[in-house]
C-alpha cells in the first residue's frame, strides 16, 4: 500500500502541528521519522491512521484519498495497518493474550488459528511469561512489546510504530528493531517508525524523514554505519 502526503497541513487552533508536508512511501519501505518532541512525528502517524484529518492537502493510501473513504473503507484500511502506539493503547481489563485476540477477531482471523497466531507473536516479542497478565501488571518495556505483538498479529501491510523503543533497554530495543527489520524484509511490510534514537537510525541505513516544527527539513537515505 503506497502512502502519499501531498502538501498536508494539520492545525490545532492557530498552531501548525505539521506544515506543507509532502512525501511518498512505497510498499515495503522502512522509513524513520525523526525530530524533536512536538516536531509532528506522531501527527503524521495519526493522519495515516485517519485518527486525525488534515486541515488542508491530501493523504492517500493505496491511491485513494483518506477523506474520500467511507467508514467501512476506513475500517478496512485500519485492519491492514499494525500500530504500536506511543501510549500503548492496550485495553486495561484484558490480558496481553486477550488484547491480541481482540485485534485478530476484529480482522476476522480464522478462529481455529487465533491461538497459534497469539503463541507465535508472543514468542517473537519474548512475552511468554507475561501473556496472562493485565497491562497494569506490566513494566513499560513489556507494555511496548505487548503493543508490538498486537500490531504484528494481523500480518499487516503497514506497521506504524510510534517510539516503539522509547521505554526499552538497549538489548530489547535492538531485538524489536531486528524483528521489525525481518518482518519488513520477509513480508515486504512497510514500516514507518518514529524515534529519537539516533544510534538506531544511523546503524540501519534506511530512509529518514526529519521534521522540525512541523516541516520536513530532510528526506534522505542514511548510509549504513
Amino acid at each position, binding site marked *: 500500500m503506497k502512502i502519499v502526503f501531498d502538501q498536508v497541513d494539520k492545525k490545532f487552533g492557530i498552531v501548525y502541528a505539521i506544515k506543507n508536508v509532502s512525501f511518498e512511501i512505497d510498499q515495503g519501505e522502512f522509513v524513520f521519522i525523526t525530530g524533536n518532541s512536538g516536531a509532528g512525528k506522531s501527527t503524521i502517524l495519526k493522519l495515516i*491512521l485517519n*485518527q486525525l484529518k488534515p486541515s488542508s492537502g491530501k493523504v492517500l493510501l493505496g491511491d485513494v484519498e483518506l477523506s474520500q473513504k467511507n*467508514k*467501512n473503507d476506513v*475500517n*478496512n*484500511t*485500519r*485492519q*491492514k*495497518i499494525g*500500530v504500536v*502506539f506511543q501510549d500503548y*493503547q*492496550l*485495553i*486495561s*481489563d*484484558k490480558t496481553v493474550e486477550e488484547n491480541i*485476540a*481482540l*485485534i485478530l*477477531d*476484529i*480482522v476476522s482471523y480464522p*478462529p481455529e488459528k487465533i491461538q497459534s497466531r497469539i503463541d507465535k507473536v508472543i514468542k517473537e516479542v519474548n512475552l511468554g511469561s507475561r501473556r496472562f497478565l493485565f497491562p497494569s501488571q506490566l513494566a513499560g518495556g513489556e507494555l511496548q512489546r505487548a503493543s508490538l505483538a*498486537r500490531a504484528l498479529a494481523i500480518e499487516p501491510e503497514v506497521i506504524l510504530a510510534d517510539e516503539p523503543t522509547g521505554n526499552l533497554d538497549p538489548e530489547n530495543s535492538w531485538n524489536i528493531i531486528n524483528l521489525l527489520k525481518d518482518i519488513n524484509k520477509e513480508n515486504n511490510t512497510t514500516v514507518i517508525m518514529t524515534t529519537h534514537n539516533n544510534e538506531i537510525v544511523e546503524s540501519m541505513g534506511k530512509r529518514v524523514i526529519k521534521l522540525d516544527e512541523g516541516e520536513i527539513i530532510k528526506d534522505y537515505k542514511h548510509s549504513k554505519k
Partner: protein
Amino acid sequence: MSQLKTTWHHIRRSPFQSLIAAITILLSFFFISIFAIVNSGLSTVLKYFETKPEVTLFLKDGLDDTAIGNIQKDLQTYNGIKEVSYVSKNKALEIYKEQNKSNPLLTEMVTASILPASFEITVSDPEVLEQIYQNYSTKTDIIDEIIYQKDVIDALLNWTNVTRKIGFIIIIIITSISFITMVTIIGMKITNRKDEIKISRLLGASNFYVKKPFLLEGIIYGLFGSIFGFVFAFLLALISQKPINDFFQPVIFIDLNVTFYLILLAIEIFVGAFLGFIASWIGVKRYIKY
C-alpha cells in the same frame, strides 16, 4: 462466539450494574406474569357466571307438581326465553354434593329436604330478565328468593375491568422504569468502556462490531428477566393455588394449565428479548457516536 465472550466480560466487569438491570426487568416480568395469571382467573370467574342461568327462582317448600308445572308454563310464555330448567330438591342435593365433594363435613349433614327446588332461566333477550324479576318478586307465596345473575355479572365485569386497568397501568409504569433503567445502565457501561471502544475503532473495528456486545447485553438482561420473572410468578401461583382456589370455589381461579403457561413463557421471552434489544439499542445510539 468471541462477541458473546466480550458481552459476558462486560457483564462480569460491572456486576452491580448488571444485577440492577436484570432485577428491574425481572420485576417487570414478575408483575406481567402475575397480571396474566390473575387476568386468566378473572376471565374464568366471569365465564363461570356467564354460563350460569341468568335468573334463578327458588321455590317455596311444599308446592305440588301442578303449581310447579304452572310456573314453568308461565315462564315459557315470555318472549326471548332460551331455556327454563327445573332443579328439583334431589337434583339440588346432587349439585351441592358435587360442589362440595372435597369437604365431606359439609355434605354429611345436608339432605334434599332442606334445599329449595328452583327454576334456572337463560334468555336470549336480556330485557326479559327484568320482567321476570319484577313479576315474580311479588309472588312471595310461591317464590322464596330470586337471584338475578345480571347484577352479579355486571358488578363482576366492572370489578374485572378496574382490576385490568390498574394492572395495566402498574405494568406500564414498572416496564417504563425498567426500560429507562436499562438505557441508563447500558449508557453507563458504554461510558466506562470508552477507552476500549476508542482502541477497538483505531484497530479497525466496525461500528457494529463495537455496538454488538452492548446490544447482546441488553438482550441477555431481557431474556434473564423474562425467564426468572415468569419462574418466580409461577412458583407463587403454585404455592398460593390451593388457598386461592378454595376461596373462589367452585371456580378454579389458578388453573395450572401447561399450554397457558408455555404460551405465556414464550411470549414473555420474546417480549423480554425485544425490550432488552430496544433499550440497549437506544443506549448505544445515544452514547456511541461515530
